[in-house]
């Protein structure tokens, strides 16, 4: 019996992008179902009743929620090709630590950069850059956070890399001038085949940000 893999997703979500990239890295055939976040499908509400959020991976009818759980699950189930996680427990712990850092210290200011103005936005910019600099120090001179290989932390960051250009435009700053080596790694990630097929055009993301800003009266 063939595997049935469905991804409940939203095109602009950095978290959805992580799941798409992981599935494509592994060459898994999947059906992507786009959700309207303002009118969530009965399937989404049934598969993720707790948070009601995307992405949700439905594998042979069973749901997996939370983007990093989804990526770990994908790596464990389709373990033959393109390992996402290192095999050494200490390196795995380091990867998990940095995911936790990204999902708190990068996520919170990132969310404010495109959706606010004035002092709130300025503080968010400062916090965002500070977090990126810490990540850049961790990256060092490696091509990827995973070393020579595109890995877990890189996948987590790539969702945000796709939003870098819209952030810069919304808040009028240059990420590259603050974090050049991180940007070099970002560019490398953005060129990978699995990524190119999984992320939207930055112009489309910027258009979405502008539309939402107008709606929020920002």
């Amino acid at each position, binding site marked *: 019996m063939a595997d049935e893999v469905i991804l409940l997703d939203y095109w602009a979500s950095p978290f959805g992008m992580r799941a798409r990239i992981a599935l494509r890295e592994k060459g898994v055939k999947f059906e992507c179902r786009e959700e309207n976040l303002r009118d969530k499908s009965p399937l989404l509400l049934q598969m993720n009743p*707790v948070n009601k959020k995307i992405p949700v991976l439905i*594998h042979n009818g*069973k749901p*997996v*929620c*939370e983007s990093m*759980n*989804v990526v*770990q*699950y994908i790596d*464990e*189930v389709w373990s033959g090709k393109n390992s996402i996680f290192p095999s050494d*427990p*200490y390196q*795995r*712990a*380091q990867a*998990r*630590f940095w995911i*936790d*850092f990204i999902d708190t210290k990068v996520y919170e200011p990132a969310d404010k950069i495109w959706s606010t103005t004035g002092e709130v936005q300025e503080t968010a910019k400062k916090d965002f850059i500070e977090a990126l600099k*810490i990540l850049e120090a961790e990256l060092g001179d490696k091509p990827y956070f995973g070393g020579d290989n595109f890995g877990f932390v890189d996948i987590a960051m790539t969702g945000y890399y796709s939003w870098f250009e819209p952030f810069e435009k919304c808040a009028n700053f240059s990420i590259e001038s603050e974090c050049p080596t991180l940007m070099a790694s970002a560019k490398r990630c953005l060129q990978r085949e699995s990524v190119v097929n999984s992320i939207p055009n930055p112009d489309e993301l910027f258009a979405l940000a502008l539309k939402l800003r107008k709606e929020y009266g920002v």
Partner: protein
Amino acid sequence: MAERSEEVKLLGMWASPFSRRVEIALTLKGVPYEFSEQDIANKSPLLLQSNPVHKMIPVLLHNGKPISESLVILEYIDETWQNNPILPQDPYDRAIARFWARFVDEQLMEKELVGKDFLGGESLGFVDIVATLVAFWLMRTEEVVGVKVVPVEMFPEIHRWVKNLLDIDVIKKCIPPEDEHLNYIRARMDSLKLKSV
């Protein structure tokens, strides 16, 4: 030639449930470790060096290499010492365990315990270890403050789960003794009251 023993050291705090989680996992696996009580008001050079990003406990040092964040530490312990597994073997079950562990860190899920002795199913698992935070700290704070945040009438499953937990030797060894803990909580409450005056 004598075998070099593994060096396991935990930078923690007596009263921190995050620190206790790690102790439960290590004790469950029978891993000998050295506990080093940290003073958060006056952070040690070792703590600052081992967790420069967050400067917080718990930090596990395994042969000198630091691991931070309690849930990350729990997974590391489970992968390194493979007896008495904490996480299930099946990838789907693991994904579920990870989801609920994170959820517990934010809030309580009374419904999950219906029909089960432990959040992990048949035996003490990942989510149970993480959730001891809720069980003991809330309930002991209730005793001190005199307000029932988790009343047994509304949360019968949680009370049943706590009773099950208390029967386990590993848990009994790893939670702070009741009297000392209650005194600690009272002292903290008093100092907080003084600050807000």
